[in-house]
């Protein structure tokens, strides 16, 4: 990943960590599910695709994804100038970084508790 994309990833990470709550559910499997679904849908929206949530669970992820994609577009003007390949690199980098901060690199000792 280029330095430029990496810096942009950090800007998006900073936004999520300051403004969102969905990435901090209390167990590893919960966090993975949240990250996969919400960031997956957000990426589709950023690429210009359409997401059609069918179940209540999907609608819940989608509502967060729509707000996140809009916030990214409104705050980070450079997003509009990126081509598809760069956007993909950006969103992949974002997913990796959020997964690291909230799951694989998290120091939270409660994440692996088998009960809620």
């Amino acid at each position: 990943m280029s330095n430029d994309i990496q810096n942009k990833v950090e800007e998006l990470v900073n936004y999520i960590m300051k403004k969102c709550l969905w990435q901090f559910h209390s167990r590893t499997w919960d966090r993975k599910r949240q990250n996969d679904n919400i960031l997956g849908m957000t990426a589709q929206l950023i690429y210009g695709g359409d997401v059609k949530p069918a179940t209540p669970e999907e609608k819940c992820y989608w509502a967060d994804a729509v707000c996140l994609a809009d916030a990214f577009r409104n705050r980070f003007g450079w997003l509009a100038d990126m081509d598809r390949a760069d956007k993909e690199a950006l969103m992949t980098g974002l997913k990796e970084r959020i997964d690291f901060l909230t799951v694989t690199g998290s120091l939270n000792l409660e994440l692996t508790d088998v009960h809620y």
Partner: protein
Amino acid sequence: MPYHLFKCSQCIPEREKHAVIKGVGEDISMALPLGYLNTIPGTISERGCAYCGAKHVIGTPMKDVIHLSHGPVGCTYDTWQTKRYISDNNNFQLKYTFASDMKEKHIVFGAEQLLKKNILDAFAAFPDIKRMTIYQTCASALIGDDINALADEIMEENPDVDIFVCNSPGFGGPSQSGGHHKINIAWINQKVGTVNPSIDADYVINYVGEYNIQGDQEVMMDYFKRMGIYVLATFTGNGSYDDLRAMHKAHLNVLECARSAEYICNELRVRYGIPRMDIDGFGFEPLSASLRKVGLFFGIEERALTIIEEENARWQPELDWYKARLMHKKVCLWPGGSKLWHWANAIHEEMGVDVVSVYTKFGHQGDMEKGISRCEEGALAVDDPNELEGLEAMETLQPDIIFTGKRPGEVAKKIRVPYLNAHAYHNGPWKGFEGWVRFARDMYNGIYSPIHQLSLLDISQDEIPTDKGFVTNRMLSDADLSDEVRNDPNLRPYTGNYDCVSPLRNKVYPEFPRKEKEVSVA
């Protein structure tokens, strides 16, 4: 991110792993305070007990219920009378608190008969109230009274009453957080699914982790009603016992305080397939995003956007008036468990203050992850602090104001640091758009209080100026402002009413057309 050992805690080296300073470019993967552990012997914690967490945070805000503690009278009395969980039924749950009044002889001979008499007496004294919650305390847990069996017996003898038993004695966890957990699980196990009302509404939510502190819940209900959303149950502020038994019938759980109530949302998701949506009712931007998200979920985003536009237009000029006067004031954000992350970023961005420290008395590491992520570099984050650490932090950081509970707040006042009550508020509600302006106003009044300025003089040693008259808070706050800001015609201080909650109780709401393909959840 280096761990931080307070000088006053050098004799308790284990404390080092409970505090960090967020350094430049550092993140939560580098260091995270320990949390939700038993308090280290020798450090005088500011925590509450697991009974208190179950009863006084979560159980007792329910409004149409006799809440009875099975234990010595002190357990129930000592903290309940400081709470401000109001309700729209004349505050029944605040005005009356019940205890079985166990004494030493009951420890020896048992207290089940005493409890039975108390239960029947309480129902007889309040014949209109047919619902009761009973809380185990250390004393009744240690002697092994079987409260559940007794409750079953009474329900059998009196079919019109319903009783919920919470076995969460004071020692049942490291802090009040253990009690939050226990009562969440006990409620879903014992009560959810035991009534099945027929609900005639398109959009049905449970509003969870909301305790109606000075009217917060009623403010948020106003927004939901304006969107045409039916709030089936609130867990638990201003909530009804029987509504909470029907939580399984909602379409969505809207979760505010995840620290105290995520457990029931998680269980409702697993057992009944109801999704959990975390929201922030504090701060214009987070609240706007939250209302929009709920609107998106139900396909009624436009209704949310209308409210957001109206409320921003009404209240932004007032919030900005305070922001201009609170800019770069240093605050310590020292609440119980969740407000560190609800507020850390929103007060910085929307009120201009700098959060120099966050702490949590009973939060878990997840709360620290959120709190540290949301505050700026340089902030000191502390888990389960003690009084000496609080004093040392205030001496080092020199905050202009702190937000905390009554006990540490009074300590702060002694060293001339003003405080706002983060648990019960000063002049709340603080949730909602108007509420957020009221919070800014309380902050402003705390920092610029002329009385506070006077308190900085020590009449036993300082020279008391006799050539200066009394000053107002406006003279203090505006002294260093530019003329442009001071006289900005677009800004104004708070213009709302002293009581902004009661009028909501009689408000008439618009009727929305029903969805074409009607989905009844009955």
